[in-house]
């Protein structure tokens, strides 16, 4: 699987390429600025890109802008954003085109390499991965709303994991229950929130995130 890495700090870039190489990724390019990233994304057309939000030249959200620009020209180009901070605003902008194949994670998540690599593969496969912090903020904002308040505690856990972009199998593993139990919960959640049920994992995530007003 070919991957483009964009990160301006040498140590982190080096660490990321090593980690990805160790997990059988092919590094198509490792760049350190937004213009280079945009060129690499458009020229190399990687299977997935791992991008730091804050990049030179202006050290603002250049990485995000470059990724959005590339996705405008190549719709659905898989991009996983990494950042020291997660902002609902940026999550919204990534999700706005409804094309999926996006991820938005705190840099800390790199510490757990298995989960991190899983997330990259999910994004590369067209899935959506949101950082738990984004999801908890979304849920916190809607906690007082009537339909969310009607969910049971377990259903809320499932909803949060669904919004993070996990499949039923992953949720079952995480909550130590059977996949059948999870699918019962998801059906119940979709009924309570008045959403149309969907078998497609990615469309399900997008529906949930849209419901949470992300």
């Amino acid at each position, binding site marked *: 699987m070919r991957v483009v890495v964009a990160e301006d700090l040498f140590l982190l870039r080096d660490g990321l390429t090593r980690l990805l190489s160790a997990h059988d990724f092919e590094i198509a390019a490792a760049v350190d600025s937004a213009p280079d990233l945009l060129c690499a994304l458009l020229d190399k057309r990687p299977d997935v890109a791992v991008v730091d*939000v804050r990049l030179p030249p202006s050290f603002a*959200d*250049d990485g995000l802008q470059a990724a959005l620009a590339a996705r405008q020209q190549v719709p659905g180009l898989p991009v996983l954003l990494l950042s020291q901070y997660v*902002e609902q*605003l940026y999550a*919204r902008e990534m999700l706005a085109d409804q094309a999926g194949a996006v991820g938005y994670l705190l840099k*800390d998540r790199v510490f757990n390499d298995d989960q991190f690599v899983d997330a990259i593969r999910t994004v590369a496969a067209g899935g959506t991965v949101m950082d738990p912090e984004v999801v908890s903020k979304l849920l916190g*904002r809607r906690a007082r709303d009537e339909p969310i308040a009607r969910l049971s505690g377990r259903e809320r856990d499932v909803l949060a994991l669904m919004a993070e972009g996990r499949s039923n199998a992953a949720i079952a593993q995480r909550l130590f229950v059977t996949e059948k139990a999870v699918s019962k919960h998801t059906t119940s959640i979709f009924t309570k929130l008045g959403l149309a049920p969907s078998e497609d994992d990615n469309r399900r995530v997008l529906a949930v995130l849209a419901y949470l007003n992300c």
Partner: protein
Amino acid sequence: MWMMLKVLYRFLARLLHQLGRGAWLVPVATLSMLLFGINPWTVAAVAGAVVVAVRLPVMAASLLPAALVTLGICGLVLVATGSGATATWAVAAPAVWLLPRSFQQVNMQVAVGKLVQRMTGGPGRVVVVGRGPRFFLPGPHPAAALKQGFGAARSQITINAVRPRPLPLPKQVLSPAHPPRGQVAAIVIHGGSRFPGFVSWQGPGARGGVLLPLALLLLTLGLLLTPQVLAGLRGHVTGMLPWLRRRMLENRWGILLIPVAVLGLSVFGVHLWTVAAVIAAPVVLIWWPALAADLVPVLLTAFAVRGFGIAAHWQALPLPVHLPSTLYGAILVSSRQLALLAGGEACLFLAAAAWLVPRTIGAHAHGMLASQPDPELAGRVQRLTETRDHAVDAATTELRRIERDLHDGAQARLVALGMNLRAVERMLPGRPDAALALVAEARETSLRALNDLRSLVRGIYPPVLADRGLGHAVRALALDTPLPVDLDIDLPGRLTAPVESACYFAIAEALANAVKHAGARRVHIRIRHADGMLRIEVADDGAGGADPAQGSGLRGVERRLGTFDGILAVSSPAGGPTMVVMEVPCALSSPKTFSC
């Protein structure tokens, strides 16, 4: 006939609909004629009411409760004093309430004397009729008592029994040949050459029966309408607040013009020109602030001259003194001793004027004539010094907070991390299982340290603000707020970083207040930039009662904005709604872009 009535009714209804509630100002103003009689004041009031009701119906509607309350209070004063004289009740009424009985008699007599003197300026006619309050002019013969009271004016007065036309007089009209029994109810003074007209002095017996309920009714109506009008005005007033605050900071001495003009009423008495001065004072203050500041010492000097004149006049007379008493500032001069005291008061006025001259006229003259520092420049320097102090204070406090946060948070966690790793080093050969647990703990600690640093950085300079500027940062802030926030943001470019940061934290503070203290259900944020001025409004529908003077949060915001010549104004009546308006003068720059 019926058709005519119908047409008339329709016309009136349409007129009333067009003018709105403001149309009621005219009948209310007309009531003043009933209370005070037909004289230049009341005629002017009615004419003014008609003009305002037709040209500025909204303003007329907002003036209505004030007019009702004023009329009600005037009516109550009239009932209390039993006096219908427009020209002197303002002087006499406080005396009636404050002074002992015996003094009141003197005061009333003197007041009548003054009145006759001023009104007639030559031989006039005085009519004495009916019954009146006990304290008013007792004695066997009211005409004699009057003469006694007139003092210096006595020689010019002839007292006649003439029925003045415009007043509905009581039946009993007295002539000098038939002196009245009992008390005097009404004195009608027919003017002479200087002031044609009349002034009536009527007791409750004559008009009080209707006056008291009427006055109470007007007062109640006015008070009932006041909250409505205030609520309607609040929107306008909040919009004006930053402008007013700016004016007040710029014209600190000009503000004094208004109280000084009001003081003029008690120094020179209530005349057309003193009242006009009170009305003119705010106009001058708003349009020509420098002139207003210059006028303050001039007026004070005029007060002093008048005071010295009164004192000299009384001292020059041989004893016993027969002069009508004069009100001068806080002193009712009715003896030589009190005249001396008035002289002392005049000295105070003069001293205040002398103190103000170098600060107002002197400073302006300097600025105009020579290369001396401009007073406005000096004021600016002072303001800059103040705001710089605030800025330095704020920066120091902020640095200390950051230092403390780092010390207690990330730094402490890194120490713990180091200790953990050291323990792992020792355990690894002998107890690898326990070492593994410690490594997991160390990783957990590093995550917490990262979290601490993240929240610290967010407090120093929020990432979205750094990346995208104020508009997007406020959008992100609204997303993180557990309330529906309506945004109306129009910022075509970026502001300078310090202004952006100050405005961002100001909005965050206002928003946090709305969530935490006001218990609001909805917040509205509006940001605009026009003519080099950034204007931010944060409105919520919460409980209100926010006071920047008490809460340190809004006060800190005000100081921080002050560094950029920004202004914060809060309108937050108890019960809400709260509106925080900020204005910061600043420029916009165009946003940056890049391409492949």
